[in-house]
């Protein structure tokens, strides 16, 4: 394991220290429990958006805290959901009287820890709602399983609902919007090489030079299938096929296309893949109205990418385009 770190146990707290220094004009960063929130929180009368989860997915979630997006993020240890006290502290820090919406990626740990915090907050009289993001088509959904994972689509939910909260939508509206966005979002990812959890010291899985892992999540867990390595055209087609068939997305649909890097794949490959995906979608009569290309929801230094589609309508486009000012996503302000 080669990383620019000190003691593996201190990775998150030391990274938060750097983040606090780098974005002192935007963020307040607390430790023990770790919480990143807008430095102007609470914003009175605005629905507060809180997300969080294990660390190692940067810029998710802390990089999306700021006007027009999240009010707070709760970073757990690497790949480990934060405990309820962190979530409670975040809720207290940002609750501005209009209720709190928790955006939770669908993992047992995240769901349980956020749920516990929500119960406590309710006891204190704070109105809290929870929306679970589960956009990963690699996992077959069923009543009897943990369900689909929340992966790169989370950033789209955070941006769009963040814009709605900013324009003054109430808690009901924000919750309904979040469910709508989740419902229209699908993702599939692929890895060329796994990342290494600092405290584990070994990669989550090992691939040969000629192998890829399809359907990976964002925690270094192996995917659903190991396949022979293939050129970008074939690989991206595989992702586009699986994602479009799932919802499905069909001719006439307008979408946002997110080509997301897993942390160790450079931008040049992401642009290359994005071009292929956009052309494949165009060939199916699906119009890509909005584009996002970059490493937004990562898995440490994993090499690989995911493709996310979000079905758009004019309202979602407006909310996507609305000003946002965070460490990792910023426009219009």
């Amino acid at each position: 394991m080669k990383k620019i770190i000190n003691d593996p146990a201190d990775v998150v707290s030391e990274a938060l220290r750097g983040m606090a220094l780098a974005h002192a004009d935007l963020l307040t960063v607390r430790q023990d429990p770790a919480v990143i929130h807008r430095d102007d929180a609470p914003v009175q009368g605005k629905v507060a958006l809180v997300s969080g989860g294990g660390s190692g997915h940067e810029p998710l979630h802390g990089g999306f805290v700021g006007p027009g997006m999240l009010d707070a993020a709760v970073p757990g240890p690497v790949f480990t959901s934060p405990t309820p006290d962190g979530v409670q502290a975040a809720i207290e820090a940002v609750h501005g009287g209009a209720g709190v919406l928790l955006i939770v990626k669908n993992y047992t740990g995240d769901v349980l820890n956020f749920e516990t915090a929500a119960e406590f907050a309710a006891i204190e009289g704070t109105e809290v709602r929870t929306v679970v993001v589960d956009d990963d088509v690699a996992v077959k959904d069923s009543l009897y399983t943990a369900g689909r994972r929340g992966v790169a689509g989370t950033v789209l939910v955070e941006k769009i609902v963040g814009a709605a909260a900013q324009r003054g939508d109430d808690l009901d509206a924000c919750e309904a919007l979040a469910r709508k966005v989740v419902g229209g979002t699908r993702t599939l990812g692929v890895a060329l090489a796994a990342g290494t959890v600092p405290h584990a010291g070994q990669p989550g899985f090992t691939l040969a030079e000629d192998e890829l892992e399809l359907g990976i999540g964002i925690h270094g867990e192996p995917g659903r299938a190991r396949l022979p390595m293939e050129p970008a055209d074939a690989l991206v087609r595989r992702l586009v096929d699986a994602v479009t068939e799932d919802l499905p997305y069909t001719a006439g649909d307008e979408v946002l296309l997110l080509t997301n890097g897993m942390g160790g794949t450079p931008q040049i490959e992401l642009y290359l893949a994005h071009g292929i995906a956009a052309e494949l979608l165009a060939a199916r009569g699906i119009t890509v109205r909005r584009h996002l290309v970059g490493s937004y929801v990562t898995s440490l230094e994993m090499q690989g990418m995911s493709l996310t589609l979000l079905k758009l309508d004019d309202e979602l486009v407006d909310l996507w385009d609305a000003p946002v000012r965070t460490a990792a996503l910023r426009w219009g302000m």
Partner: protein
Amino acid sequence: MGCSTEDLVAALRAAAEVVIDHRDELVELDRLIGDADHGENLRRGFTAVVSTMDGGGWSGPASVLKAVAKTLISTVGGAAGPLYGTAFLRAGAALDGRAELDAPAVATALRAALDGVLARGKAEPGDKTMVDALTPAVQAAEAAAAQGADVVATLSAAAGAAADGAAATVPLVARKGRASYLGERSAGHLDPGARSTSLLLTALATHAGGAR
């Protein structure tokens, strides 16, 4: 032979140390079918439990178990934090008002713990989770207690059944927790949470007899 509050504190401290000692093994099990953090999560949590046990001022076994629960909930995170936290919380609640533990109380506490895990995690036996170690453990404890076994023997029965239950997770295909994302590929591996449950119960059985 009952188990006093002091005995319980000592046993929990010893159990915590066993879990901490097995950190690397649990990380490795979780690396293979999960996200490589179970051992680190429990090391963090049970290190905090050792500090909590240093605290003292206990009003009975229930207060000890609830303190353990609170500590785990606020330090472990992940799936295991709320699940083990709930287990200890419910076990504690089931023992409210008792000054020390006898075998039936142990069985009652374990049953309450299992019910808590099931309520929280919604797993069923055979889903390849800690439930597969805890379910047979509860059944064995209840049977032992019903047959008049003492606390240590009751816990030993539970520990033995938990070890068997954990081992039996190997061929299973996971339907809950992170390993479920692997589908068929989760078969052939020991579930980390079942393993940690078995470790905990074995350590409790070994140390519940106190200094005796």
